[in-house]
């Protein structure tokens, strides 16, 4: 079954700790995760900062354009993996292995067939 692992983290913390061993450790953690998961990872990427986001919002017939991510929250979507594993328990086990700084979340969403 395919799942998207959506990684939400505190961008400010990443910015604050840029060029420190903490961030380098997270990056190394992602490489280790990719090796560990092997062919179970079928896609994914880091995303550029939410400040670079542009949002097209639909309200009825109207489409409006906004600078920034769809919601202003402390934790923002920072990247995602697309994985193919047997079931939710395997997806949860994978999500637990995703490296984080001091806080963050991984949302596990089954990919629609």
């Amino acid at each position, binding site marked *: 079954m395919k799942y998207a692992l959506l990684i939400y983290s505190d961008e400010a913390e990443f910015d604050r700790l840029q060029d420190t061993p903490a961030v380098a450790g997270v990056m190394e953690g992602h490489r280790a995760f990719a090796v560990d998961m092997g062919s179970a990872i079928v896609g994914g990427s880091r995303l550029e900062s939410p400040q670079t986001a542009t949002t097209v919002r639909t309200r009825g017939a109207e489409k409006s354009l906004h600078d920034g991510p769809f919601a202003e929250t402390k934790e923002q979507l920072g990247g995602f993996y697309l994985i193919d594993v047997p079931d*939710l*328990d395997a997806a*949860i086990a994978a999500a637990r292995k995703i490296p984080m700084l001091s806080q963050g979340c991984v949302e596990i969403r*089954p990919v629609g067939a």
Partner: protein
Amino acid sequence: MRRDPARGSVNGGCLDRTARAAGARIIGALAARFRDLDIAEDAFAEACARAARAWPSSGEPRDPAAWLYRAAERSALDAVRRRKVRDRWAPSISGPDVSEPAAEDALIPDERLRLIFICCHPAVAAEARAALTLRLVCGLSVPEIARAFLVSEAALAQRLTRAKRKIARAGVPFETPRPPEWTQRLDAVLSTLEVAYAKAHEDAAGSSAHAGFAREMLDLTGVLAELLPTHAEPHALAALVRYAEARRPARLDEHGAMVPLSEQDPRLWRRALIVEADAFLAKARSLGPAGARTLQAGLHGLWCARPSLDAPAPWPAVLSHYDQLLAHREDVVVRINRAVALGEVSGVAAALRELGSLDPAALAGFAPYHAVMADLLRRAGQREQAREAYRRVLALAPAEAERLWLTRRLTELG
């Protein structure tokens, strides 16, 4: 009892008994095979409806459970064919020839453990887990569960539908968990049963709807311990539920007011349940170092060992159990209960000091905190503050039995 009308009360006796005894097994076996809770549940309901029509004229089958299983299996296969499910999750529909639902002696695979783990998966919301377990494993009807959870039937039905949809679409495995997930998954099962039992226990009088499923909780915790013979915590939970149910006849006085544990007459307690509970607790203790659930059950065991009201209450041992529980994890409810025991062992002043160390703002809406505080202040002779504390608990709308008891204490204060 599986009391769902769709599950047939028409020819009552035999069908009801069979559905109750074998329902979880049949639904579990179908769910494990077809990997779909809806199909399993609907097929079982349909089998019961068919039995209600067929048995009065054809007579009860020699093995009613096997008859229901075969009939349910056939309904499930029909449902699968009708759904034209996509190949990748279509179950294999080979297997026994099901053209003859009256075939005798079909062996129903025991997949109840898998069914319990599916219903209690931590990815499902806790209250939905409890409701789903009561529905599928205990066979309670939607109206019964809705009454126990104090929600409308429509809301409960929607909660169940959502939970089943999540299980189906999110890929919750129809397997017992693998080692890395085992601890967390078992904990989710046990906490689900605790949520469900708390609903059954709340009703002290035992007269309204949810007291009915206290019996199902006795069954279910017993089954779980039986299915997991080497795990301490399911045995501890089975013990705890039995101790608590044993005391049910003594929980209210003749006016319907609650009777505190230390004032309950042990002669009213149900001895047979205490004997069963003692055995489960001894087994739990033999299976490893005492965890939080074993300690909780041990606390109940201390009280239930009291032979009569003339015998001293086991306060020193109770206090030591609370100390051990706190060593496991900091828990404000445990600290409030510990303060009660401390008051009995070391005096009211020590207990008030202990309560004083808790954050009153965080506990403003927590009735047990104010109730314990009120009792301690009353015994310390601080009448005005005690009255104030009693009024605070009463303002938090306690259950009727507690309200009566608290009001009596407040009146006694003058």
